[in-house]
């Protein structure tokens, strides 16, 4: 068991620690003063945050439906929602472009609205939502399932409507699952590269910039950007976990 633990820790942490320690402090400082790097990291966090919020708004009612209702085709729908986790990510990018293209009614409608997908922040957010949404839905559905339906029934019998029941009973008992869903969704979106590089090479996100610097200039120039992306993500996730843990102590 000890050997297994050490192996897992080495496998996960050694490359990350190496990545953080490799660039000199001077190089790290110089990198973070580069406006392109700052813009790329900010875009990654900003677009991923938007994708997480969209997943929260769209995915939460859907997760509730999956947790509470039985209907024909439910298993199929549950499998379908996991598809973005399974299929190669460039395929996701290609699929989104094919729908948003000039030959597809959706693409034509978006063009009529003046919405551009290819090479835009909008396209980027759509791609990140696509890849992150299943993580949010799955985490939140598990949370809803853990709340006995009878609590909601009793709440309704006491006079609370559906909305009041959700906010007074269901949400207080599941908000940690929502936070975990947001963390998972955000994490997945920040790390996305394969689909993003197809839909929006520019404006450049941090993973695309790391890839570009690696292919154009080599490991030395890509490492500091990667280190800053890891640091920014780590700070964000520590804050979210801290919020979740603080709530756990105060039910």
């Amino acid at each position: 068991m000890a050997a297994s633990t050490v192996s897992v820790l080495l496998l996960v942490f050694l490359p990350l620690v190496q990545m953080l320690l490799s660039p000199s402090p001077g190089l790290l400082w110089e990198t973070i003063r580069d406006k392109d790097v700052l813009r790329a990291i900010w875009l990654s966090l900003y677009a991923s945050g938007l994708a997480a919020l969209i997943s929260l708004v769209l995915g939460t009612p859907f997760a509730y439906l999956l947790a509470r209702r039985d209907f024909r085709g439910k298993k199929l729908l549950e499998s379908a929602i996991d598809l973005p986790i399974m299929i190669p990510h460039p395929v996701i990018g290609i699929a989104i472009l094919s729908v948003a293209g000039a030959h597809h009614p959706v693409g034509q409608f978006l063009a009529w609205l003046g919405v551009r997908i290819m090479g835009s922040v909008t396209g980027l957010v759509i791609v990140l939502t696509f890849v992150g949404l299943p993580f949010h839905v799955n985490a939140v559905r598990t949370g809803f399932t853990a709340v006995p339906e009878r609590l909601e029934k009793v709440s309704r019998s006491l006079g609370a409507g559906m909305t009041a029941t959700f906010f007074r009973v269901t949400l207080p008992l599941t908000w940690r699952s929502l936070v975990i869903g947001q963390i998972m969704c955000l994490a997945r979106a920040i790390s996305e590269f394969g689909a993003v590089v197809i839909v929006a090479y520019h404006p450049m996100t941090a993973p695309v910039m790391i890839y570009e610097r690696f292919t154009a200039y080599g490991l030395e120039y890509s490492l500091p950007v990667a280190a800053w992306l890891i640091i920014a993500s780590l700070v964000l996730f520590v804050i979210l976990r801290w919020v979740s843990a603080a709530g756990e102590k105060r039910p």
Partner: protein
Amino acid sequence: MIEVRDLNLSLPGFALREVDLSVAAGEFFALIGPTGAGKTLLLEAIAGLTAVDSGRIDVAGREVTGLPPERRGVGIVYQDCALFPHLKVRENIAFGLRYRQVDPAAGRVRVGELAERLGIGHLLDRSVTHLSGGERQRVALARALAVEPVVLLLDEPLSALDPAFREDLRFMLKEIHRISRVTTLLVSHDFGEVQYLADRAAVMNQGQIEQTGPVEEIFSRPRTPWVARFVGVKNVFACAFESGRARLGDSRIRLAGPPSPGASHLAVRPEDILVSLERPGGPEVNCLEGRVSGFTALGQVLELQVEAASVVFRCQVVRQAPLDGRFQPGQPVYLSFRPEAAHTL
């Protein structure tokens, strides 16, 4: 007060079919039946927590079939209490008050009074996760009563409790009903509980109501062989009727009156049969000769199986240590019971 007419409700693998039920205002009514009979589903249909396929439900003279649960005025208490774990006892009890437009100060008074009446006044500021089973059930009851429902539905509220707590709460339920006169519909498996609490009852089986009537009538005069067996009448035999008597094998069983129309069975409660080693006197008593074929000890009672009139009767005798050797297998005995104890179904 509660009128259910021709109610149909289908779920995967189960259905309520053509359910009719009528509960009078202020009545304490019991729904009894085996597990999976549909009792809880019927309760939830009345509360609006499960949608029905067809039929009509009226509560307090108003049709509520299409109304959402929050507009029916029906309170429900489940066996597992379903207390809100994130709220304290006080917050649980006060949960529904804001939807009844109760002034906060009046609400606090009402919560306090209810808690005192139910013996949980000292627990108001506790978390519900630290309560015993009996305390949890009292909180659930207080929460349902706080909103002053027109109908109170109790889904086996006592069955998960220890016997001592169960008896306390049983008395409390009776007292609360006596004071509030709230129309109450109780689901229970416990016949003693039903006999103590309820005025009338309905027996459910496989999504249908088999019999409705005063509790004593259901237990003493079940209308179908299934209900008879369910309420503990262990001697239910198919028989023919001739000249106002039941023919069981070669024996003619005297009845108190003419057999009920369409009757095909005879039912006798085990506790109504006297088992003796000598033939009892009295021409008006049914007396059958038989032979003990086996026995089972049930606490202070010995249940004898006696072959008589081509069937096996189950009878009960009180265990008496010096005499327990009387009824060994093969022992000839006499079974006697009054015509009033012989029911036709």
